[in-house]
């Protein structure tokens, strides 16, 4: 059974139709993700326009250096993911596995730094809810900022965890040789998802960490 027959699902006419369907399906899913995060960005925009000062105080509670490092980590993971997709399409199995591993590593590093930041805030009682102990001015609005901080970065981290899981599956598939130039849709689609999660962070970093550096 030639590789192309194996790759073609029964209800598609040909491989091009199947590839079009897969990529279009992922782009449409990414639009739902844009609107899903969009609700949070809308809430952020509303409260930042009402309480600019409080969002300034809140932003200064976030460690800019860790945030910047995380941005660099995530952008480099985007690079390695793009190279992984290229390797999959060219059928370079070893390089594919290497780049997938690199992306996986960088993703976990990002989550590690995130965990560090969260535990840092736990110790300083900066987590919204019962144990919130911020003594500065506008404490209720700063808690609101931190709600959006934890909400947005938490949802983003959840998407990172899902991405890492997908990468693990892809590495296993690549290891077993299931990914060939004609059957590389899964890697390409995972790449689109990963780059999207990176773009969300590209917007989160300035909005949460760089609100008020000049005070």
């Amino acid at each position, binding site marked *: 059974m030639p590789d192309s027959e194996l790759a073609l699902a*029964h*209800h*598609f*006419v040909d491989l091009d*139709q199947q590839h*079009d*369907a897969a990529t*279009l*399906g992922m782009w*449409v*899913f990414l*639009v*739902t*993700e844009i*609107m*899903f*995060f*969009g*609700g*949070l960005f*809308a*809430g952020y925009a*509303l*409260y930042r326009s*009402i*309480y600019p000062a*409080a969002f300034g105080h809140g932003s200064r509670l976030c460690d800019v250096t860790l945030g910047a490092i995380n941005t660099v980590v995530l952008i480099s993971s985007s690079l390695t993911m793009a190279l992984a997709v290229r390797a999959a399409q060219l059928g370079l199995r070893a390089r594919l596995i290497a780049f997938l591993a690199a992306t996986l590593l960088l993703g976990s590093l990002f989550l590690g730094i995130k965990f560090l930041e969260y535990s840092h805030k736990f110790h300083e009682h900066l987590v*919204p*809810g019962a144990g919130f102990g911020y003594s500065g001015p506008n404490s*209720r*609005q700063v*808690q*609101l900022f931190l*709600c959006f901080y934890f*909400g947005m970065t938490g949802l983003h981290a959840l998407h990172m965890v899902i991405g890492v899981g997908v990468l693990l599956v892809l590495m296993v598939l690549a290891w077993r040789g299931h990914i060939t130039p004609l059957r590389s849709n899964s890697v390409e689609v995972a790449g689109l998802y990963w780059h999207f999660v990176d773009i969300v962070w590209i917007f989160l970093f300035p909005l949460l960490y760089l609100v008020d550096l000049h005070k």
Partner: protein
Amino acid sequence: MSTTLLEPGQEAGRNYLNADYSIRSWLLTTDHKRIAILYLVSITFLFVVGGASAGLMRLNLMTPQGALTSAETYNKLFTMHGLIMIFFFLIPSIPAVLGNFLVPMMIGARDVAFPRLNLLSWYLFIAGSLLAMVSALTGGVDTGWTFYTPYSTTYSNSYVVMMAVGVFIAGFSSILTGMNFIVTIHTMRAPGLTWFRLPLFLWSLYATSAIFILGTPVLAISILLLGLERIFGVGIFDPKLGGDPLLFQHLFWFYSHPAVYVMILPGMGVISEVIPCFARKRIFGYNFVAFSSVAIALIGFLVWGHHMFVSGQSVYAGMVFSFLSFLVAVPSAIKVFNWTATLYKGAITYHTPMLYAFGFLGLFTIGGLTGLFLATLAVDVHVHDTYFVIAHFHYIMVGGAMMAYLGAIHFWWPKISGRLYPDAWARLSAVVIFLGFNLTFFPQFILGYLGMPRRYHAYPPEFQVLHVMSTAGSSILGVGYLIPLVYLLWSLRYGRAAGPNPWGAKGLEWQTPSPPPTENFERTPVVTEEAYAYTGEEASVDA
């Protein structure tokens, strides 16, 4: 109306129904037709639950002091009625049942683009409705289907979070359906089937899927924030902690107004299929009707603020939303005029689907026109949150979407089941439903302008006569809905065999045997003519 059993020889050959009778083949199917049947059965059950809660509400409103149920029970009933009917019946009704069944067949494909995701969509729907039913049975939710904060987050002590999670999960069910339809219609059309030869039902489902994709996630995030706020009390919507209750209303209505177009657009698509068939006429102004569906879906996202004219929204924002709300009415008007013009010089037969289409034309027109009252700022101040609004949206959802759904079920029943239903009973039930509906909801327009607020379990005595009329109408409507359940099930066993094309209709779905084989088409068909290319003298079953 013959009631003879099907002669053995006449039994249709191998098809998607008798391909495999095991439970496992049904619960793990990826065949879009079987998934449609799974949806049909589940939403019928949920419709009965939603309808029963409406019946109880109407009985309670027979007397001014609302003697049948306590206030708390009444609040849980109207919340249950709203949630079940909207999220668990109307939104999936035409897209998930008829859309799933017909989209691949109408474009000459063997299945939707992602069959496994299609099955996952049904399981998410079942998970969501189970959560909703459990939260209803264990104690119920008393926040109204709109979940307005801060009542839903801080002051209500009912099972809000469980219901919210149920709606959250059901939201992803419609996102998957929307994704499937958009990709299927884009990438899997048969050769020769250009966009402007597509049946208008697919244009309306494409527009509906756009709303699923662009709107449902915002509902998901607002329900998520609602749950977080209710569990952790962090102040996202709680004014005592700096939150703004109007943020929830904005996020909620950003989805929930386009959701009403999700409920009516597929119905419009059905009417665009039924009227040309039974008038034997090409649709009048195909391009205008097609683009109207897309225009409704897109402009529908700009108008949500008309739900908030008196809720503390700024005066200027109210004017912007009011202006845009009038714009969205234009495409709907274009559609109604085009359907009416299609009847001109036709050879019209009064089969049941056509009766439902006539009912739709009349009731949707009233519903649409009363929508203009609510878009007019000064009048909305008086009639907002009164029975005028209740009557308006029931004319659209029950008079419009429900009538179109029943019309669609009757139009494609021969294709789905391979059987014909008794036409006399079907026509009778259509008329009973039409009369019962009008008796139920027309008095509510008068109640509304009189100032009767909605969600009241007791009311001033001067409104009693109109309420009694409405309750009488609701019992007729209830009976009207039961009749189709009976004769359609009856037809499965005793109905006459329907050939491939009992109505003489145009469209690829009618070129397959009834019920169709699992793979729909042996060879992918080639389309050569326009949609609804009626010549005028196609014979129908009893011609």
